[in-house]
């Protein structure tokens, strides 16, 4: 703790600043402290604008032990005054660095003297040598606190060496500018006041004067040389200062490193598993094969890709080879194959499908009821060609609103569908109109009919 502002000093300052007599200031201050206590007693808390809040806090009685007798005592409860500074004042004081001189040297006694005396010398030199000293006194206190904690770790002799050494560059440079002849002249008169002040603290200024009395030099463990190493000592200074960099958090750096590592891992994974990934993607894109579909879900029928529409049977083994290369997961494929389009040469182009459709639909107009059809329908709603990946269930949903009606589609197209699971791409599927009865799922007969048709379809699939 540095200084204190005493009560009388405060009174004086108040009288001066407020423009009141000392008597008035005195009565004010006395009243202030007195009334503050009284107010606390009555109101338990007092707020003073610009200062803060004073509160009265109750401390509960507690059990303790008499130190001499060892018997139990109860320490009485009491009230204590607690102070919380106002927000603005708190921040003001929180961030404020107290003036360099006051607190900094309080912990470091042995070197403090040295530093304080060094300052004196600098001032004296400044006055006498008329060198620009405005910055120097400020610099020294700034340098010293940084150096001192570091210096304390080192041997005792070294801080002594460093301090005068570091001050010397500042002092010596202006001194060096002067012609050499003046140096002895200016420094000689300095010698005496310095010698008077303290024999211990004999900076290297004396050392520069070899003719000067040697007593101070002997006491000084430092050689005359350090101040010659002016350029050398400066880097030392900087090193010392640099040794204590502010502690930074390396958060951003860490995050960047993690991101880069993750990216590298992804790249590695990609390259390593590229072939397998390619195969997996192809698998997804390609429609499922009939053999595989049969095993999994007979209900969902899937169109097969065909090289030539006229050879449905031949077309089977050809595509069969392809999926055998790729087939890994038949089950999930059924959904994905429906939507995807694979750009493979074996698939007929859209034009081909359309051409075939037109060719077939030419026949269509003649027959509203196909051969083998079990039910009769009220005309055709539409005719839709099978696309790659189409399914009867899906088409049923689209046209009728529910998948369960797909057996009707099968029934209406028995002449064209030998195996509901294997339908050529491009086969035109008749989509008959359904009567409300046929749509009625609550109708037992309808459901039975559907079940019947479904069985037939399933039989055809085997």
């Amino acid at each position, binding site marked *: *703790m540095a200084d*204190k502002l005493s009560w009388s000093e*405060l009174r004086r300052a*108040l009288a001066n600043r407020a423009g009141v007599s000392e008597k008035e200031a005195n009565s004010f201050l006395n009243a202030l402290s007195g009334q503050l206590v009284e107010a606390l007693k009555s109101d338990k808390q007092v707020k003073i604008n610009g200062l803060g809040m004073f509160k009265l806090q109750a401390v509960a009685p507690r059990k303790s032990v008499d130190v001499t007798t060892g018997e139990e005592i109860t320490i009485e409860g009491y009230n*204590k005054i607690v102070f919380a500074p106002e927000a603005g004042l708190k921040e003001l004081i929180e961030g404020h660095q107290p003036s360099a001189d*006051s607190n900094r040297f309080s912990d470091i006694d042995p070197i403090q003297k040295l530093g304080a005396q060094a300052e004196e010398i600098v001032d004296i030199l400044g006055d006498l040598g008329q060198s620009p000293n405005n910055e120097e006194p400020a610099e020294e206190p700034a340098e010293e606190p940084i150096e001192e904690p570091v210096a304390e770790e080192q041997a005792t002799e070294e801080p002594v060496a460093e301090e005068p050494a570091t001050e010397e560059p500042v002092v010596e440079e202006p001194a060096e500018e002067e012609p050499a002849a003046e140096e002895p002249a200016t420094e000689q008169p300095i010698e005496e006041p310095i010698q008077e002040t303290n024999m211990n603290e004999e900076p290297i200024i004396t050392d520069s004067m070899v003719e000067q009395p040697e007593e101070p030099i002997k006491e000084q463990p430092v050689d005359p040389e350090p101040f010659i190493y002016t350029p050398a000592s400066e880097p030392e200074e900087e090193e010392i200062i640099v040794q204590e960099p502010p502690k930074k958090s390396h958060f951003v750096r860490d995050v960047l490193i993690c991101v880069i590592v993750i990216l590298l891992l992804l790249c590695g994974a990609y390259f390593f598993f590229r072939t397998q990934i390619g195969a997996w993607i192809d698998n997804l894109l390609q429609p499922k094969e009939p053999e595989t579909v049969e095993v999994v879900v007979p209900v969902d029928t899937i169109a097969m890709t065909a090289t030539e529409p006229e050879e449905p049977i031949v077309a089977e083994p050809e595509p069969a080879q392809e999926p055998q290369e790729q087939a890994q997961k038949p089950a999930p494929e059924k959904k994905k194959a429906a939507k995807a389009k694979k750009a493979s040469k074996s698939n007929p182009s859209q034009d081909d499908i359309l051409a075939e459709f037109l060719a077939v639909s030419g026949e269509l107009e003649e027959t509203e009821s196909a051969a083998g059809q079990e039910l009769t329908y009220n005309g055709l709603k539409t005719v839709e060609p099978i696309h790659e990946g189409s399914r009867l269930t899906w088409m049923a949903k689209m046209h009728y609103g529910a998948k369960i009606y797909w057996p009707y589609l099968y029934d209406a197209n028995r002449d064209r569908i030998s195996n509901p699971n294997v339908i050529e791409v491009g086969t035109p599927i008749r989509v008959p109109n359904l009567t409300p009865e046929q749509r009625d799922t609550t109708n037992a007969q309808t459901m039975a009919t559907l079940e019947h048709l479904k069985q037939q379809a399933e039989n055809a699939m085997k």
Partner: protein
Amino acid sequence: MLTKELIGLIAEASGLPKKDVEHMLSTTNAIMRENLMDGKAIQLQGLGALEIKERKERVIVHPQTGERIVSPRKNQLVFRPMANMKDELKKI
């Protein structure tokens, strides 16, 4: 109790007009502020002292995340009541 009330009490006790008391109070605040900025403690007779306490740098841990942060060096304004304040408060 608010500042205004306190000013009223002080005016009564000291016999000074309220306006003067207010003015002197704000002046006192200013003087104290300046001295505190210089690092000086302020002695208040009959009350105690207002001091500056240094809070050195320290490592603090966030209780939930466990994150460690360095709390920087700072100063605190602290009121130290006078020694026999306990007794004073006991008096009616």
